[in-house]
């Protein structure tokens, strides 16, 4: 469960670039919540605040019941994040990359092997498990990064544009994986600027524009709210323009 209340963050010398400007929303357990917004809407900043990497200027948020400012350690233990920055260590194998983060999260070695195998199998990476990630394709690297984010079996999972660079087969496999995690009762936050992605996967959608929540609800609710005929029209109407929103 993620609960966000009037969270705000500004950058720049005069704090005049309001990346996130009073965002309030929730993401429930056992559900996939999509954050949809054009580039620069504040998705990455929001995610970084929830991951305790940057401290908000205002507002509150809890992740799995832990305050993101006062209980950073507990928050970090309960999240698995695929952030915008998802670099791997090229000279380590896929398995070593995953296990390194597992160790830092305190996953015991015995459990690690089993979980890594399961993740690698689920993402169709078994054949590459013990090869260095140096020569991996963009999509293969992405899958390793996803496995790395999930190795400690966190209750809250945040994914920033997880389908970037994946081919259609991999996207389908990933969706499958995310639905399984939903069924297991995890709280999933999925950010994307691709409308179809969000619609295909998410139970609830939060539309972000210029650091503010423009609208939130199920796909049907959003259509009704905007008075538009189709979902795509609804997004354009709600955001004021379709700029930056991939079709």
């Amino acid at each position, binding site marked *: 469960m993620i609960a966000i209340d009037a969270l705000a963050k500004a950058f720049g010398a005069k704090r005049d670039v309001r990346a996130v400007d009073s965002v309030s929303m929730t993401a429930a357990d056992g559900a996939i919540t999509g954050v949809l917004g054009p580039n620069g809407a504040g998705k990455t900043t929001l995610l970084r605040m929830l991951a305790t*990497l940057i401290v908000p200027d205002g507002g509150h948020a809890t992740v799995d019941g832990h305050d993101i400012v006062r209980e950073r350690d507990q928050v970090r233990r309960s999240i698995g994040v695929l*952030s915008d920055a998802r*670099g791997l260590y090229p000279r380590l194998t896929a398995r070593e990359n995953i296990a390194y983060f597992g160790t830092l999260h305190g996953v015991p070695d015995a459990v690690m092997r089993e979980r890594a195998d399961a993740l690698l199998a689920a993402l169709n990476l078994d054949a590459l498990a013990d090869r260095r990630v140096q020569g991996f394709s963009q999509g293969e690297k992405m899958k390793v990064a996803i496995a790395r*984010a999930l190795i400690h079996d966190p209750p809250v999972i945040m994914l920033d544009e997880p389908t970037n660079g994946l081919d259609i087969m991999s996207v389908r496999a990933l969706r499958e994986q995310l639905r399984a995690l939903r069924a297991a009762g995890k709280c999933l936050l999925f950010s994307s600027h691709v409308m179809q992605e969000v619609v295909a996967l998410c139970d609830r959608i939060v539309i972000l524009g210029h650091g503010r929540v423009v609208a939130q609800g199920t796909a049907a609710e959003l259509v009704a709210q905007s008075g538009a005929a189709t979902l795509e029209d609804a997004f354009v109407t709600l955001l004021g323009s379709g700029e930056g929103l991939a079709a």
Partner: protein
Amino acid sequence: MLSRILAIARKELVDASRDRRTLTMTIVSAALAGPIFLMLIFNLIASQADKSRDVKLAVVAAERAPALIDYLKRQQVTITVAPADYEAKIRAGDLDAALLIDENFARDVADGRAGSVQLVFDRSRDRAQAAIGEAEALLRGYNRLWGQQRLLLRGIAPTVGNPLDLREVNVATPRQSGALVLFLVAFYGLLAAIVGGMAFALEATAGERERASLEPLLMTPASTLEIATGKWLSLAIFVLLIVFITIGGFYLTLAFAPLPSVGVPFLFSARDVLRFMAVLLPLVALMPAILLWLGSRGRSIREAQANTQLLLFVMTLVPAAQMFLQRKEPDWLLYVPVSAQYVLLNRVLRGDALATIDLLQAALVPLLLTAAAIWAFARTWSREAVLAGK
């Protein structure tokens, strides 16, 4: 906490050990530094002609052998009257050598016996080597000249008494020949501590930012202090290895290579290798910490490289300046990192005793700075700005 630090250190060591090209370059250049530079130096020395001589000799009771003193003066030796405590001064390095003329010198000569003189010096003083050698050569020259003159007076050709025409070529550049070799060993030991870990330090810091693996790392429960400590630990282990290889290279070269004698009473035993390591240990701790801190301030490896240039410049300038200044080192120098180590390395090379207290004194500031640099590194990475830009 400790398990995370060790996990980070282990990962860095595995990562570094797989970077074959950088690893090979680092190890090969560390191992070859000794052999190559010693060869170059010996070559240089051998090709240098005996140039400017500037020999000063303190003489006790010069009036007992006026002919000898005149001879020395003709050879451009500056004769001074030796102070009463000349032995102490020579031990302290304030006086290169003293010539003592026996009180029976004139009588012995008149009676047809050999006149006795003593040349007093401290062979372990590298700075005095040239002066000592020069004084010895001059005294032998006088001896030979005197003998030849006696033979001539008796109508015998000088070659009868000197069938072997031995000509000494003084290959010593003024003063520095021995010192230069010693300087090189000390200098490369220091340099290995600085340069040995440079590539990997930048890879482990600026590299994390460059390939966008830093943000995920910072999201783990590992604190920046744990990350900094783990990375420092791995790099310190690596640098220790590099320094050991460098010193070992010099040791093996000096022990086994057929090098020409350059008049250096040079003993560099396996024990000295260990003493070297003991002296350099504080720098093995300090340099990785500073390199990591500098690296953490760069957004890319290239940017971080610029930061390290200045460090390299300052660190290598210090021992070079010390060598060319050629003064007796003041006591407070033992508190200055790099300078202190250079002083102690020279003591090892001179065969002087290495007092534990001196080792601790020289380690104090570097160890404090190590802690400070690790802390500064951790702080740099806990700032939000570290996430901006890739």
